[in-house]
């Protein structure tokens, strides 16, 4: 068998293996040797894909489903009564209204997203196994919280490669600290892990208009590109020598691949991060106006630019939705910061003809209890909550599944996180049962031994 390791090792001269293989975006996806040499080369899906790319809007902290996308009239009726697990039921402080031709019920927390209702497929019967943040976050990303496993984005990239090998195929925009495992590749090759962009650099916050610099160290202050390529060839030849001496050291393989990627990123990234060429109307669509929507608006705009550039999987995190207290003010503030940007993103993708092949996913690690916690808060609720998808291959103005009358548990068509993963992979043209990776003698998959595709939401 011709392994990645062999490929990395044998190509010992010149431009490194990727250039040698003839930059992957031009290479035929069916060219087996090119694929085996370049782990990022596009690969044929298992069946025709409905979506080519994913933007995952990760709502960290657990936004309340009963205050956003899961309308519960009975909760209003029973306000103040004792909930089935104790505590007093709390009606939503926000009004729900029907929107679009599909008549989806959406609360006033998301007035702008509501205008895009006819693009949305609500999944109102989500379930996961973890009642606490770190565990639920990890399960949402990797399918399990017990072990360190590859992230959804890493699996997607492993299955499909990427269309632009000058950019990471999986980008995580400003992830919270200490969450690398959620966008990591685990036992998959390191090149499939998410690359963090933004977050941390104080520079970006001071120089609000100079977003091009928010990828630190993107330019060498001294060397010409040719000189740097020569340097890189030396580095890689030393790395390949080491790979030849060692056996099965995934770390060294990862270093080799990440240098090639980093080298090419230098050309592409600054231009991509520089949003100064965007029109006023685009900026205002995303709410990039120096106000409360500015920060998340910029992230969403970057997500669109990455999609255009061919990045396979982009994750954007927005938090913190964990309102055990001050639900009415803090949920309002969180929603205000992201409502317009998200709506702008959907609209912009639509206008550019990108929405039909871009799958936009919105969701948190769980929802919140219908019963109050304190006077103005809700606790974690992992047995029933809502996520939605839009664009690539899903129905619009559609709602799938339901929770009980108050919103505690999914009772109609429950969609476990494994089903959710299976569906996302399906939309990307991947059969979750066939997308396997052999590690230590066993075939692993994202959905373990579970997962059913939610066929009803497919367009």
């Amino acid at each position, binding site marked *: 068998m011709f392994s990645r390791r062999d490929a990395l090792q044998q190509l010992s001269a010149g431009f490194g293996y990727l250039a040698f293989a003839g930059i992957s975006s031009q290479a035929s996806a069916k060219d087996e040797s090119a694929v085996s040499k370049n782990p990022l080369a596009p690969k044929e899906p298992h069946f025709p894909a409905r979506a080519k790319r994913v933007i995952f809007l990760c709502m960290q902290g657990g936004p309340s489903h009963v205050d956003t996308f899961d309308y519960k009239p009975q909760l209003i009726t029973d306000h103040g009564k004792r909930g089935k697990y104790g505590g007093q039921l709390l009606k939503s402080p926000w009004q729900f209204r029907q929107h679009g031709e599909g008549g989806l019920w959406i609360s006033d927390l998301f007035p702008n997203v509501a205008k895009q209702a006819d693009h949305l497929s609500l999944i109102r019967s989500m379930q996961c196994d973890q*009642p606490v943040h770190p565990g639920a976050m990890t399960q949402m990303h990797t399918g399990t919280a017990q072990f360190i496993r590859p992230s959804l984005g890493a699996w997607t990239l492993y299955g499909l490669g990427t269309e632009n090998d000058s950019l990471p195929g999986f980008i995580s925009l400003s992830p919270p600290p200490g969450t690398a495992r959620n966008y990591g590749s685990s036992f998959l090759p390191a090149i499939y892990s998410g*690359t963090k962009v933004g977050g941390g650099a104080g520079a970006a916050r*001071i120089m609000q208009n100079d977003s091009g610099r928010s990828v630190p160290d993107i330019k060498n202050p*001294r060397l010409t590109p040719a*000189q*740097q390529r020569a340097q890189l060839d030396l580095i890689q030849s030393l790395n390949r020598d080491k790979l030849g001496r060692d056996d099965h050291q995934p770390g060294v393989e990862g270093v080799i691949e990440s240098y090639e990627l980093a080298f090419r*990123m230098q050309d592409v990234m600054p231009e991509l991060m520089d949003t100064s060429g965007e029109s006023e109307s685009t900026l205002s669509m995303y709410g990039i106006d120096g106000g409360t929507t500015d920060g998340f608006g910029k992230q969403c705009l970057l997500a669109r630019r990455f999609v255009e550039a061919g990045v396979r999987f982009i994750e954007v995190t927005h938090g913190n939705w964990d309102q055990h207290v001050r639900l009415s003010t803090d949920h309002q503030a969180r929603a205000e910061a992201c409502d317009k940007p998200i709506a702008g993103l959907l609209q912009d993708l639509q206008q550019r003809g990108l929405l039909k092949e871009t799958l936009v996913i919105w969701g948190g690690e769980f929802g919140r209890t219908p019963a109050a916690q304190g006077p103005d808060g809700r606790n974690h609720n992992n047995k029933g909550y809502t996520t939605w998808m839009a664009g690539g291959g899903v129905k619009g103005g559609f709602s799938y599944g339901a929770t009980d009358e108050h919103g505690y548990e999914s009772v109609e068509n429950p969609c476990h996180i494994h089903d959710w993963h299976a569906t996302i992979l399906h939309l990307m043209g991947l059969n979750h049962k066939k997308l396997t990776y052999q590690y*230590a003698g066993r075939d692993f998959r994202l959905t373990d031994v579970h997962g059913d595709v939610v066929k009803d939401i497919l367009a």
Partner: protein
Amino acid sequence: MNGWRYLALIVAVAGFSIDVPAAENLTSDQLQFFESKIRPVLIAECYGCHSDEGGNVRGGLRLDTKQFTLLGGSSGPAVVPGEPDESLMLSAIKHDDFVMPPKRKLSDAQIDDFRRWIEMGAPDPRESQVATVQSSITGDDIREARESFWAYRMPQPTSPPSVNDDLWPKTEIDRFILDKLQQSGLSIADDAEPDKIVRRLCFDLVGLPPTPEQVQSFRRQWEIDSDRAIGVFVDRLLESKQFGERWGRHWLDVVRYGESTGSQVNMTFPHAWRYRDFVIDSFNDDKPFDRFIQQQIAGDLIPAKSDEQWTENLIATTFLAIGPKNLNEQNRIQFAADLVDEQIDAVTRVFLGTSVACARCHDHKFDPIPQSDYYAMAGLFSNATTYFGNPPSEYGNFSEVQANRTSSLMVLPVDDPNPFDRQYASVELARLKTELSDKIREQRQSGPQGNANQASRIRLNNEIADLSAKVAVVDGAGRPRSYCMGVQEQSTPSDATFLVRGEIDLPGPKIPRGLPKVLTDSASPIANDSSGRLELARWIGSDQNSLTARVMVNRIWQHMLGRAIVTSTDNFGSTGQSPSHPELLDHLAVRFVESGWSVKDLIREIANSHVYRISSSFNDDNFQVDPDNALVWRANQRRLDAEAIRDAMLSASGQLKFERPRGSEVAKAGYVRVRGGFLGDPREAIQRMVSTAQARSRQPFRFGTRNRDSMMSDVYDRMSNALDMNDATYRSVYLPVVRDELPRSLDVFDFADPSAVIGTREESNTANQSLYMMNNPFVIAQSQAMARRIANAYERPTERIDAAFVLAFGRTPSHHERTAAAKFLSTFSIGAGQPEAFAVFCQSLFATAEFRYLD
């Protein structure tokens, strides 16, 4: 069956019941009396310091609900219905035992009203919910867990198993390892080459690469007697000052060491560095680990023989004060509860690998820790005051806008001020004070809704806060006082109140102070007149619990072998991982205690074991059985951590300053708010820099010119990268650790999040790391320095190449590598010149996988 493990869902919400008595039982006369005579006085005179709304619970007393009034504060019930003489409240307003309200006495008529009210049974319509504690974790569950779950049973001394190979084991550790491997039919790797072993030892023990001299002499010794070579070399490393810098940093990961509060209002901790140095010194002194623990939990309560000892003990308690904080919190009671919660969480996870803080809002979902255990521990901490801010000045307590919560500092009994706190001449000090009082007057005159616009009000407020902070830290003669962060006990200990769902407005009964029941079989050893924190410290810092020694030896094993015996290093509970070598873990724990809790002895023993020196070579048969290498059939290839990578570059370049810098960058900045990655107000600093630059250029400042743009961009660059500390050449452990604003050299290589207890760092492999190695100014500067260093020492090109390899990798190059390097240098020199070519070559070595991996 371990039934208690599966309690999770049943327990979820059923842990309490709420009983709301009806207010209708009061007669209308009683109600009338309360509303007209009692409530108005309570609101006007008492709520300010004793209510949730006022945000104050002085003495643990709230008077804003009936239940709290009856419950009372730290001195006992405020009101005993029908018993005026038993009611502390009455004696307080009469100014008998207490003097309340403190500034003026109520009128005789008012006092008489309170007496009558208490006599009539203290009728009070201000009902609040009262909970009774009902745990679904029973005594039997706890007993069963103590008996059945490995981590709650005491470590058992085990004699090392006999193995059918008497030659291979060099220490007892080796017998445990070999035994497991043989049971699983796995073979063990051969020994690594001496070059690799010496590199391993140096990075593991002192966090630095071996010097060329060390490599050479170790190899010589190795050829004579390999065991002795290791033994002698290890002893020498353990004695070096760099040992504490390496192992102290491991500890700082675990104790969430940071030099600012983090979150939205990110205020600095200018005295945190004292704790950092205390930790480093403790590891260098091989301070018995039990004592080290006791100092950190209760240093303020441990008897001290000298001022120096007392100083050290106080600094040790910085551990409790250093956690992340949300100064923006409006509610003082909530803030106090969160502070104690953070302390409980840190103490139990750091030392016991147990998460008691999970039981704040409900019984622990997975471990047999009822919610009442949490509040039993809360009482141990809530009797202390935590100091983490800056002292008030003689003019009062001022803080930055949005910093709603403030705190003072502790004064040390020795004269050892923060090295950057400056001394003021008397004229200067007087001027500062005048300026401060002028501004305070200006603020008073403009009033809260005064004419001044909001921006200028905020500016004035912050200027006052800054001035006050400056004036506060010097004595009357302008000499800086010596401060540290930490905790100190309040006078009278009291129990903590059980809070339903952890909510401050859902109080339950008082819970007697005590230790988690699953971890101790003796009754609570805490005396009435003691907070219990010292008892806690002595119990954790001892072999009287099943966890402390195991948790620490497991941490040490992890840092030496690259993989822990219990891989969930901060979680030894039922959701954690089981030990790969339970007998070895117990053996090490027992030995650790027997050695007098000597960290150095344990490290020495591991370093001298045979398993420590095996190679990392691959074996497919073994891999199929044990892909994670849990049984240690080969050495784990490990990526160096961020500090070791940076220090290794400085070491190779010869630029590394071994002396410890006094204080830290944060100490230099003083007590300020961190904004946009900058210590202080970036706008002010920009103005300062611009005016300096203007003065330098002697050019009139013109708007809209290219000059201005490039100057501003330069200013931005310097400001936004200030905390990267690219010019610093001391060891990485001394770089500033400002929460949410880590230096890039640390952040890019998975430095531990300083806001969390991190026993095991992540180990990522990313394009960002490649960009850092290719383009970062610090990396480039060190490459150039290394090139100069080599050029000064060697003439011939091959000598230079060899020297570079030895400095970077601790080995000479292979023939092929030497040829490749020579070819690169000759080609590259054509355009760039020879010195630049060699610098680029040195940088290439830094950038390789070999440089950052330990085989």
